[in-house]
């Protein structure tokens, strides 16, 4: 049991915020959702997880969010091997994460304010602090003045923004986003990616699962490419800080941009 989520070491110390080593996850014995995946995530990184449908992007996001435990391999978050953590410790560790799901997962009969303020409420922040912080974040995602509305009354795009606001409201160390711009128009998507980039610049590690090539081209960052549950490549495009760990002799990833394009084309 840990009292509070530890802050990760500074990137300058070369200690990853998250480290995955030979992670595999099987829902069916004959077809792994993820197989032998290894990489590190550093503080302040913006990383795309790309790949076609069924590649294992969502499974990877769920593993990083500690919603699932890998069948084999090791996942270390902020120095903790998550396999050793008890449920309560996992819950506390999750408070240092923000997550945006494809289907938003807002509570429909709560107001936007109440939805967005939930991570702060769970931490026991004061009502006044929650109100102030929620208003600030809603303003940043373009929902200023909409806080009192019920979440079910928002459009799809607005719900997506509210979900993003909830993910960032507690200033997480790790932000996981599964297709966060899927419901947004190009202008709004660009705005939201800009917001996530500013978070990364402020020290939050952002992992964004997407298959939107236009988006990746417009905002180039390190890209982890999955296909059939396997890590088939890792780019170093714009902002990449590291090369991927060697997976096997003779299996060095080629140029990242090409791999990303190949993976997406598959």
């Amino acid at each position, binding site marked *: 049991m840990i009292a509070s989520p530890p802050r990760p070491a500074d990137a300058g110390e070369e200690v990853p915020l998250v480290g995955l080593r030979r992670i595999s996850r099987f829902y069916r014995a004959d077809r792994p959702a993820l197989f032998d995946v290894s990489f590190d995530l550093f503080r302040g990184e913006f990383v795309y997880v790309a790949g076609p449908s069924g590649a294992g992007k969502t499974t990877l996001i769920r593993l990083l969010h500690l*919603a699932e435990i890998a069948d084999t391999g090791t996942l270390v978050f902020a120095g903790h091997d998550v396999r050793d953590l008890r449920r309560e410790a996992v*819950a*506390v560790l999750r408070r240092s*994460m923000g997550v945006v799901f494809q289907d938003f*997962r807002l*509570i429909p009969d709560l107001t936007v304010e109440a939805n967005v303020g939930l*991570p702060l409420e*769970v*931490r026991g922040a004061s009502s006044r602090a929650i109100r102030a912080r929620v208003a600030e974040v809603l303003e940043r995602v373009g929902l200023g003045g909409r806080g009192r509305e019920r979440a079910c009354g928002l459009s799809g795009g607005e719900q997506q923004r509210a979900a993003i606001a909830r993910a960032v409201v507690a200033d997480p160390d790790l932000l996981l986003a599964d297709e966060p711009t899927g419901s947004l128009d190009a202008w709004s998507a660009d705005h939201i990616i800009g917001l996530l980039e500013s978070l990364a610049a402020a020290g939050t590690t952002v992992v964004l699962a997407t298959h939107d090539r236009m988006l990746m081209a417009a905002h180039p960052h390190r890209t982890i490419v999955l296909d059939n549950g396997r890590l088939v490549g890792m780019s170093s495009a714009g902002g990449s800080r590291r090369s991927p760990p060697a997976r096997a002799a003779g299996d060095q990833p080629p140029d990242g941009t090409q791999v990303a394009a190949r993976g997406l084309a598959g």
Partner: protein
Amino acid sequence: MTNRLYGAWYLLRRSLGGFRRRPLIRALSVATLAAAFLSFAATLTAALNVDALLHRWIGDAELTVYLEDGAGPAEAERLSVALAAVAGVARIETVTPEQARERFAADLGSHGELARDLPAGAFPASLEVHLADELARSPARRRDLAARIARVERVGEVEVYDEWFERLSALGLIGRLSAWGLGLLALVVAVLVVGATVRAGVVSRRREIEVLRFVGATDRYVRTPFMIEGVLEIAAALALALLALHVLLSRVESVAGDILPLIGGGSLLRPGITLLSAMICGGIAAGLTGARLTLRRIGES
């Protein structure tokens, strides 16, 4: 510390919010629980009153010896002295015809005038015989004593009340057993009903629970509001049951208030603070158990 206070406030707010949801189901649950608690409390109250009545009767004369018409105070005194010498007789009280008429009039309360119109023969002189405990509680010995007294000269009739004692004793026993059976049933009902409403709450708020978990809520944070809701449900049902019991007893008193003295009863006994505390604590414990079992089962699945 401040964080904990805010955390507690958010939990309470979430519980109250949950309690107000699905008002029809909630009302049905509370009504079911209240009916179960009321059955227990009403039956136990009835048993208490039967017991009290029995004790009042036992505390009065266990035997009444009616003298023959025309028997005067001298015969009554002579018989009283003779009976006082019998083993097991604790005390003897002589009741003159006038005293008997006055007592009856007093028992009738506002209808006392009726007693004054009855003929003199309706109120023979009598001796009320109070027995020692061991004799009072043995029907066989009591009957044996009554048979011996009946053979004494100038004794008209000996009333033993055995039939009434036996009936009331049996009624009291059945009442007590039924009450505790209903009490047990009420606890089982509380566990099941609270468990069912918690389950319904968890199902209808699955999305909320899922969201709470992924923003870092601990198991305790997720479960506590449901436990509080269970306690609130029980508290509401207990309050409703006790109010209904009060109304019921008041109604019984207003309807049968005049009759109770005639059968030897005083005012109705109401459940004491110990019984009420036990009912409240038992109910809340059962509600918490129901909520906890359900949450554990759901958590494991």
